[in-house]
């Protein structure tokens, strides 16, 4: 049973070709959703989920090892922590420069963009942090749950 499953799963030409064509566009759309969150529905959470889904799709069609060539376990670990650190770091830095916690206008001392413009840019920084964390956590959850924690081969 196991042998048949391994030989058929993900070996289909149609699945492989369509996933290979789709993944770049899915990732581009994910980045668009994060960056365009200021003007349209979207933002860090939604864009991060779309980016994470593209890696999961890669793992489903080509196997877990292939998805780990594009995002290694080490990079995934770094991204997971980096995203949360960006968010909290922006808050702490703005508190250090004389504002309240997460008061982005205080960062105007660091780079003079204008206090109101810093609110917009601070939200952008925070959304990027959210997107990075959500993307890598999505991939991490899929890897661990589908392979039982071994991260070698999944569904």
């Amino acid at each position: 049973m196991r042998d048949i499953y391994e030989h058929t799963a993900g070996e289909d030409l149609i699945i492989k070709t369509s996933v290979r064509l789709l993944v770049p566009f899915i990732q581009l759309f994910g980045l668009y959703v994060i960056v365009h969150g200021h003007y349209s529905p979207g933002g860090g959470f939604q864009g991060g989920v779309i980016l994470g889904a593209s890696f999961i799709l890669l793992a489903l069609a080509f196997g877990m090892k292939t998805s780990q060539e594009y995002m290694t376990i080490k990079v995934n670990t770094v991204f997971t922590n980096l995203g949360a650190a960006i968010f909290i770091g922006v808050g702490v830095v703005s508190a250090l420069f004389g504002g309240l916690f997460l008061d982005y206008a205080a960062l105007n001392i660091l780079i003079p963009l204008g206090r109101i413009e810093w609110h917009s840019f601070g939200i952008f920084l925070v959304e990027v942090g959210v997107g990075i964390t959500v993307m890598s956590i999505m991939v991490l959850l899929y890897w661990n749950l589908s392979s039982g924690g071994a991260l070698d081969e999944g569904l």
Partner: protein
Amino acid sequence: MKNLALLATLLTGALLLYGTKDFPAWGDPQSPASTYLSPHYIEEAVEETHVPNIVTAVLGDYRGYDTMFETVVIYCAGMAVVSVLRRNRDEEE
């Protein structure tokens, strides 16, 4: 012990339900949230943050603290799954 836990749950639930009696009705224009908080967001958000999307302005700026802990919750979920499931090949042998 089980009955005691059930009793405590029911009592807390009853107290919370009793508390909802004092809530303003759905969409009540005289409720505190509708009289000064929502109008402030709707009227001032674009001027104060230069973000045309009010949802993003509220989520990322006015309620940034909330969004930060949403991210931390997702982070904790990931760490919990890793700490329960993750195993290395070398350790098994």
